[in-house]
């Protein structure tokens, strides 16, 4: 399974794409496959502060709940409210339309701790 190489990944299976000082966050294709059909995504509000490593929301399938862990810190500038009505987008298009939040990065250095697509693919193959 190959993940897009235009972004970095966390061990908790979130991806981050950086554009200037704004980071867009979602979950990986691998993660959505493991979860199965996503039925609900509970996201924070614009203005909330994310702290790296902390839970910032939840993603639900029919019979499971998983926490979303912040791969970077910063203030939320935008939330993908389209997921309220169509959470299945996370399954269909996890790396683009299925994005979850945008964050004004408070410490770009945190990105260094995240994995490249190649490392992430190796990480999930190891299990």
């Amino acid at each position, binding site marked *: 399974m190959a993940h897009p190489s235009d972004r970095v990944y966390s061990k908790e299976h979130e991806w981050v794409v950086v554009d200037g000082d704004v980071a867009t966050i979602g979950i990986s294709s691998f993660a959505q496959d493991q979860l199965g*059909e996503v*039925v*609900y995504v509970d996201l924070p509000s614009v203005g909330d502060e994310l702290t790296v490593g902390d839970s910032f929301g939840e993603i*639900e*399938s*029919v019979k499971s709940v998983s926490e979303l862990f912040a791969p970077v810190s910063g203030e939320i500038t935008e939330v993908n409210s389209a997921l309220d009505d*169509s*959470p*299945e987008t996370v399954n269909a298009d996890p790396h683009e339309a299925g994005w979850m939040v945008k964050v004004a990065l408070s410490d770009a250095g945190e990105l260094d701790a995240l994995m490249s697509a190649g490392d992430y693919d190796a990480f999930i193959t190891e299990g």
Partner: protein
Amino acid sequence: MTEQLSHSPGVAPSRGPRSLIFELGAPESRCVEAPPLDVPMGSLDEMLGGRTRRAALDLPNVTELEIMRHYSHLASMNFGVDSGMYPLGSCTMKYNPRINEDACRLEGFAGLHPYQPEDTTQGALELMVGLSDALAEITGLPGVSLQPAAGAHGELAALMVFRAALTARGDARKKVIIPDTAHGTNPASVTMCGWDAITIPSNERGEVDLDALKAVLDTDVAAFMLTNPNTVGLFDENILEITEAVHAVGAFAYCDGANLNAILGKTRPGDMGFDAMHINLHKTFATPHGGGGPGSGPICVTDELAPFLPGPIAVEFEDGGYGLGWPEQSLGRVRAGYGNFGVLVRAYAYVRALGGFGLREVAEQAVLSANYLKVKLESTFEVPYGRTCMHEFVMSGAHQKREFGVRTLDMAKRLLDYGFHPPTIYFPMLVEEGMMIEPTETEPLEALDAFVEVMLTIAEEAAENPELVKGAPYTTPVRRLDEAGAARNPDLRYRSTPE
């Protein structure tokens, strides 16, 4: 495919549109009406102080025949213990004796109001005292409150008893320990009791990992909750060491009584060192599950904890009369009324029908039947904990998933085509592709053998024709459902005009 369906399904297929009750009847249809008014009728709006209903009331108007046909049709789409074998692990789906149903419907029980004078309810109170005494003897825990309405309610009530006892000795604690095999109600009850649930792993034998337990036991721990026999169907051999370790830090040992059926008359939680337990009367004591309830979850506690029990409870006076009383330092009520009395009547009748000898026989046959199924199935399905089980065992469909891509869920659905209710699946989580099988003592040998035969057939189908199994069921009133769609766009009630 038809060939493989030689076992006639327990639920007859009945396809086609099924109406909601709201879609039946006509505005002028009537079934039951109030009798003609024999007193003067004033202005309703005046009597209600201007609160007369203006909002529309979306209830059906139907005739009695329509009601009977509608609900008979719905019933025909259901599977109960009377329909066929229901080996649903941890749920003890045994036969529900009909005499008990008759008993609870006697006007002398069903027509009682909770606020009648006690001298008009002596028979009911005597029954409650009799049931309490029997439960105390069966569990070895002398203090009994029949108040809790269900198992989870009993768990919470017992944790509240612990809290009250700790408070009385000025001991504020914060944590409750539970094994990773615990029912979800355990941690949820801990939260409702204002404590934090700490989960510990099980060892490779499927038992409590004593070292892991001892590592988290300290004076902040209020209680340890354990199902014994546990949720993989094993009796924890170290039970005395476990309860001793718990008591050593001043904590209480709690027994989740979901699996009491296995040990009736063979051993008692009180003798194992447990301080409190709940009993699911709707499991062990043969009261019906009712499609989800009502159950009843009495709690039994040590003498030390009895003063804190929720009340009121039925008591016997020295003069031979009966009444309702409050334990000395009772924590208060956990509900209105005195318990799910209608369920208590059934459970009492069950205990009186069987007696001590009969109850022991229940445990013995339940355990024998489970071991019989395990022996017959263990060469085809992986059984992670292979030793002698109690009244249930957990086997795994991991082999079938690995080799043929057929999941336990698929095999469970295929069982429906053969007229069996599936076992509990994917619980406890620590067994991959788990199936928890509890035949109960009331299944005849012929049914056990038929179940084995069908499970082996399904295993063959999984190997030879996996798509067949993955598409099951085929013969049920409906087939696999769009559960994701239901959760994404919840439609939780009928609307006469679509939005």
